[in-house]
């Protein structure tokens, strides 16, 4: 049985594309057959985050307009081949090139081939958003602990609830534990309380994300904090019960101190 997940946020720049790339790659690592669909027509980005920008021949609009077969437009990932594909979007068209019915039809085709169809939604609540959510079974709303992102997430959750989407989950992205500790950032609990929606994971603000985007290699599954956090979310998407990650692990002052003493005592022994 396949599942169609739309990754959305309302506000731009909170990490939709990064999350799409990492969650999709993570699910492929866990043995699922995954296709990532960039629905942000005119602002193509998922291809560069995935490091597949040089392989695009056909795109989503080509498929919808019948210029090519669906299989011709699917780009296999470097590491996972058939298990992880990308359907890139058109760069020189706009949102009106596709309508929700065409998206639904396309998704039904993809369902036949893949376990997970993950849709990277554009920012905003206009036609691009309506296209992206049209065929989705569930939504993952990405927000950051900032007032503007949370307000937009609330609006998006309202629109999703009014649509036919069955399940809505929340990811709080770019959490800075140091700022939360000194009271200068809302806690994850605050965000969940305000939005009253199910939390499926939190991702720390991690500079490794920038490094991984620079290289075009998603960091999910690596030992970085964000890599672990994304992998945990993948497990939860599969229905596994994984406790929330302690962002301090290995990074906090006490952990460092413990690590220091641990090392020195090893030397002594």
């Amino acid at each position, binding site marked *: 049985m396949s599942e169609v997940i739309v990754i959305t946020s309302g506000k731009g720049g909170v990490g939709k594309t990064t999350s799409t790339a990492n969650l999709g790659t993570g699910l492929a690592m866990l043995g699922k057959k995954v296709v990532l669909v960039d629905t942000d027509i005119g602002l193509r980005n998922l291809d560069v985050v995935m490091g597949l920008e040089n392989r695009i021949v056909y795109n989503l609009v080509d498929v919808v307009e019948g210029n090519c077969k669906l299989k011709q437009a699917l780009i296999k990932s470097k590491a996972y081949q058939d298990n992880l594909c990308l359907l890139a979007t058109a760069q020189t068209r706009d949102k009106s090139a596709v309508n929700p019915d065409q998206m639904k039809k396309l998704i039904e085709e993809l369902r036949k081939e893949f376990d997970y169809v993950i849709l990277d939604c554009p920012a905003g609540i206009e036609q691009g958003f309506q296209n992206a959510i049209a065929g989705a079974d569930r939504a993952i709303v990405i927000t950051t*602990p*900032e*007032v503007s992102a*949370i*307000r937009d997430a*609330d*609006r998006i959750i*309202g629109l999703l609830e009014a649509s036919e989407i069955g399940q809505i989950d929340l990811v709080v992205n770019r959490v800075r534990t140091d*700022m*939360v500790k*000194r*009271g*200068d*950032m*809302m*806690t994850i609990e*605050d965000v969940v309380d*305000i939005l009253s929606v199910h939390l499926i994971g939190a991702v720390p603000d991690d500079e490794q994300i920038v490094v991984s985007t620079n290289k075009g290699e998603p960091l999910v599954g690596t030992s970085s904090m964000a890599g672990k956090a994304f992998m945990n979310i993948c497990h939860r998407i599969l229905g596994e019960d994984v406790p929330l990650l302690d962002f301090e692990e290995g990074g906090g002052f006490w952990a460092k101190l413990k690590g220091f003493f641990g090392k020195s005592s090893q030397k002594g022994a």
Partner: protein
Amino acid sequence: MALFDFFKKKNSGNIARDRLKLVLVSDRADCSQDVMERIKNEIIEVISKYMEIDTDGLDIQLTTTESDGGNGEVPALFANIPIRQMKHNA
């Protein structure tokens, strides 16, 4: 308590949370004409069980009012329902 609040208010995380809560109440209250019409009809239905009301004179709208907690203006549902007569069997 006031002193505690004073210190609590100082960090920006709490300021953000409190501001957001208020702005979202307004955002969420901004409902469509269709929803308002449904609320109106259901209020008429409930009240009519107990009293005879002047449905034409009924006025219902979203406005703002000063909150009790001193948080400034908050949205309020204002309903003016003229009663014609109480029902005896209620």
